[in-house]
């Protein structure tokens, strides 16, 4: 068996797909360079230092390199594993730790939601603006990417399950999605029902665990994974459906998270049952709609396009719903959000965001992005650049199109 590190033949074909290499031009910030550093880390512990861990830790885990590597070297995964397990890897900062605490349970999520809502009041807005002056790197900057009109309840409390008989779909509502993008989860449920499926929202579900897993709290992530698997198994549903690219990949990777535990086999079965809402919808014959008079450009979330090969589905669905599509250059290049990467690596993250915003074609009125991290991050970049373009989840766009054509219950006004 060839070990994953040795599998690299040093061909360099991955270099041009790696956002951190393109940004810095440094071989150490390329997938191939990171593999050299990981090898060194393993084999020469006496040479470890902060600089090496920084180059490794700059990896966005965007998986772009994995998608193009002919030898299937799982560079992103290897860096993730290093980050999760190495004691010397940089630890999450204060803002990250706070976020990780808040997403641990519904009570925390409500606080997150309250904070979001509060920051959108007039007083909140001006306080945030005041705080941000001169603080380019503050995590609070993300506030500027929040969607307007925050819900007062978590989506799990808003969506009623189809109760008769076992449901088809076990809707995974996530954490940030549940609190900040509650509307999108609701829209997912509406659309899936329009497609003729039944939807169940299980109150037992936990956060997918990705943030904790990738920040050195594997045991916590494993615990939640087990709870999710148990809840799904006992629900009688056929599929787990997710509407956030990051959660999708994390749920599909439960077999890796639970490898070597008694749950491994069950994790395999679970991961086979996980699908993205966009995948499910594009398999179902929703009616084509007339022109919506809105031009959309699609940003591909890394954990869709590189990790799961989801590229065609959002375009197909948006087009079917009557949106005009225009492609942006490098649609599949990471926007720099990468989970909570933007909190820990403000410079790199800002540079990638600037490139993303620059790439938006002039005709586009909306940027579609199917991941909460990307949405927050890109929306913040758009707001800062002063353009009227907004970032929206493709499910929200779809929902509005189908509702405007009378396919979904009218009213439906956001709270």
């Amino acid at each position, binding site marked *: 068996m*060839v070990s994953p590190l*040795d*599998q*690299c*033949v*040093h*061909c*360099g*074909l*991955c*270099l*041009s*797909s790696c956002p951190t*290499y393109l940004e810095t*031009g*440094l*071989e*150490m910030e*390329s997938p*191939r*360079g990171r593999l*050299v*550093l990981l090898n*060194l880390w393993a084999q020469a512990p006496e*040479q470890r*230092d902060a*600089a*090496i861990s920084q*180059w490794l830790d700059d990896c966005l885990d965007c998986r772009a390199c994995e*998608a*193009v*590597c*002919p*030898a*299937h*070297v799982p560079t992103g995964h290897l860096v993730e594993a290093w980050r999760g397990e190495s004691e010397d890897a940089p630890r999450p900062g204060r803002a990250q730790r706070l976020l990780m605490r808040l997403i641990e349970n519904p009570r925390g999520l409500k606080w997150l939601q309250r904070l979001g809502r509060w920051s959108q009041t007039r007083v909140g807005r001006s306080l945030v603006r005041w705080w941000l002056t001169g603080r380019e790197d503050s995590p609070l900057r993300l506030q500027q990417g929040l969607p307007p009109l925050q819900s007062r309840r978590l989506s799990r409390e808003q969506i009623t399950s189809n109760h008769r008989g076992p449901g088809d779909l076990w809707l995974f509502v996530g954490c940030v999605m549940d609190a900040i993008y509650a509307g999108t989860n609701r829209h997912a449920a509406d659309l899936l029902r329009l497609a003729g499926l039944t939807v169940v929202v299980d109150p037992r579900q936990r956060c997918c665990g990705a943030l904790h897993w990738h920040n050195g709290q594997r045991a916590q992530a494993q615990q939640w994974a087990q709870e999710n698997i148990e809840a799904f198994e006992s629900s009688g549903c056929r599929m787990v459906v997710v509407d956030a690219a990051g959660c999708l990949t994390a749920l599909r990777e439960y077999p890796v998270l639970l490898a070597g535990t008694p749950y491994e086999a069950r994790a395999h079965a679970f991961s086979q049952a996980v699908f993205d809402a966009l995948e499910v919808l594009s398999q179902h014959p929703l009616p084509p709609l007339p022109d919506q008079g809105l031009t959309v450009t699609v940003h591909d979330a890394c954990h869709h396009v590189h990790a799961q090969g989801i590229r065609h589905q959002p375009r197909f669905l948006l087009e079917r719903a009557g949106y005009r599509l225009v492609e942006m250059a490098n649609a599949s290049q990471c926007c720099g959000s990468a989970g909570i990467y933007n909190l820990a690596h403000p410079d790199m993250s800002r540079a990638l965001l600037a490139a993303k915003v620059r790439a938006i074609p002039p005709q586009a009125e909306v940027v579609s992005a199917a991941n909460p991290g990307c949405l927050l991050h890109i929306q913040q970049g758009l707001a800062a650049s002063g353009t009227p373009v907004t970032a929206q989840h493709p499910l929200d766009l779809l929902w509005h199109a189908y509702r405007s054509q009378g396919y979904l219950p009218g009213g439906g006004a956001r709270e």
Partner: protein
Amino acid sequence: MNEWLSSLVDIVGAPYVITHPAALKTYAQDGYTLASGMPRAVVMPGNAEEARAVVKHLYRHRIPVVARGAGTSLSGGAIPSDGAVVLHFSRMRTIRHIDWTNQIVQVDPGVINAEVTRALEPYGYFYAPDPSSQQACTIGGNFAENSGGPHCLKYGVTLNHIVMADVILANGEAVRLGSLAGEPEGLDWLGVLVGSEGTLGIATQLWLKMTESPTQSRTLAALFDEVADASEAVSDVIASGIVPAALEMMDRLAISAVERGSYPVGYPDDLAAVLLLELDGEAAVVDEEVKLVIDLMQRHHVRQVREAQSLEERALWWANRKTAFGAMGLISPDYYVQDGVIPRHLLPDALAFIDRTARRYGIRIANVFHAGDGNLHPLLLFDAANPADVERVQAAGLDILAYCVKHGGSITGEHGIGLEKLDAVRWQFTEAELAAQAMIKRLWDPDGLLNPGKVLPTPGRCVDFRP
């Protein structure tokens, strides 16, 4: 800090001078993994002026310098020997100008090959030299290696597509070689520098010829049950006078690797060989040629001829072929690719010889190559952790090169001499030829500071051979 180092910082700025030992280690190799060499430092110039100042400064200290693009060279060309300073062009990657009147593209040396075509494609043009590494390799590297690719069979190699270049000499002076008119006046120094592997000068700006996209292009995959049939079919296609845009071949072991790679196309796993053929030009002519080619294939017992049904399918077939080297990582810890050229009518014999060589040394050899121009790429599989393995593949590789030279071919088609083939150079050239080359080198680089230890065999090479 040493004076030579602090001045470099003054020229390019501190973030762009790298001396951290672990960082330097990431620059110790390129795509050739049988050797390595630690650079003294890595410098990343932001523009041509900075690059020139860096070279000038290093010249004052007589410190050797090696240019680096993407480090995809397969012959060790970008490996720094003698503690050279690496001049990494990753920051200089802008397409400067597209001159539609003269059909010329002006680029920085760090521009990625595929990006040039990407910029031209919407307007019905492309950049013809398409090395399989085109998604990553740079125009500067292509210039230095005179790179070719599948489509060079019809359109010619890098040499035919660079009309002008700004070059830094060993002492830091800048010269412009060639002209937009394309015809050399007097001695064709540009022609000498293309393919000189960074040993004569360093390019900081290049002017490339664009090519009009053909109106019609059809791609065929011919599946064979015998390698001999496939190679005879190649000879026949060439003999028929048809010039395909590309004519590539992969054998069974290679197919088994690419089918496990990132772009499987679904070749049956019991195939002995596949030929990938592309015919392009005027629609009527192309259709005629396709008929003829299919007929030739059938005469050689082809199992099946498939045609790509869409642009996506065509792209997939090429991606499958072009990632073949990397896919070796899936069937072996390491590979060593040879780059010999043979007269095309000898293809069947050469493949039989390679097969015998593999048996003799007890190693596995996969074949992926530009069949149309007789450019072989035997991929010798080995495990670098096993010293005996390393010796065996090196010896087998040399045997194959010796075969090529003996039969009137060459030791390199497109990957260059680099470090890798220094020994084999002596078989290819006579003493007089070598002396003439050495004179040119002395003329351009009297102190031997540009990419030392490459291309020309010199006594006392300073690289650590693995393991």
